[in-house]
């Protein structure tokens, strides 16, 4: 099973991705989806700007996805990460994991997100509601802790 990894500026459609993964198949018993959205942080935020490292972003998410395929019996795996300017309510990231039983799908989706947050070369910068450009978002220590528990 080859994971689908896409790095794109355009929005994605969660239902269309699930449909593409399950079409004409009868062996899948569980689908877990995770979508990460842009928050407005209580009205403070006008948008998030996502910078990425083209080439490495695809390669690194591909390596993490391949690791998930090694660790869990999956029928399908999709990871999509957007870049550019994303407004509150907009979608940033999508993970879809399909397997025969729910546990593998839940765990693989969570593993992929935990590793993606600490290893995929993306950086967020805040654009504030007052029109100014805020600072770069700082990495969170609990994201490292979340990724480390899979070791």
């Amino acid at each position, binding site marked *: 099973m080859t994971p689908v990894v896409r790095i794109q500026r355009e929005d994605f459609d969660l239902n269309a991705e699930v449909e593409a993964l399950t079409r004409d198949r009868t062996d899948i018993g569980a689908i877990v989806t995770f979508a*990460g959205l842009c928050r407005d942080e209580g009205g403070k935020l006008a948008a998030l700007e*996502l*910078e*990425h*490292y083209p*080439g*490495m972003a695809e*390669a*690194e998410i591909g390596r993490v996805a391949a690791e998930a395929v090694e660790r869990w019996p999956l029928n399908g795996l999709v990871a999509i*990460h957007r870049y550019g300017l994303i407004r509150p309510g907009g979608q*940033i*990231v999508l993970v879809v994991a399909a397997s025969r039983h729910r546990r593998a799908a839940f765990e693989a989706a969570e593993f992929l*997100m935990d590793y*993606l*947050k*600490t*290893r*995929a*070369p*993306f*950086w*967020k*910068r805040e654009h504030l509601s007052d029109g100014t450009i805020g600072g*770069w*978002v*700082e*990495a969170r220590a609990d*994201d490292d802790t979340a990724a480390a528990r899979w070791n």
Partner: protein
Amino acid sequence: MIDSQAETRTLKLVYFAWVRERIGVAEETVEVPHEARTVADLVDWLRGRDEGYEMAFENAAIVRAAIDHVHVKPEASLAGAREIAFFPPMTGG
């Protein structure tokens, strides 16, 4: 006579987020002395170039590096490297 080709290695350097802003360019090609054998050596050499680099690497332990699209530690060898990237801890997802 020393072959000048052997004294330096040509590397493409790319920078992201606040590392890019502090250095002032997104990418550049540099001739690095061969004495610089590791990523940490390269950082030391870059810091001596001007204050932008000094600012970018003032807390060198924070800045992450990748060689040819793969994450590496400061002690990683530059041998065979083509593109070295420096960037802050990642905040995607």
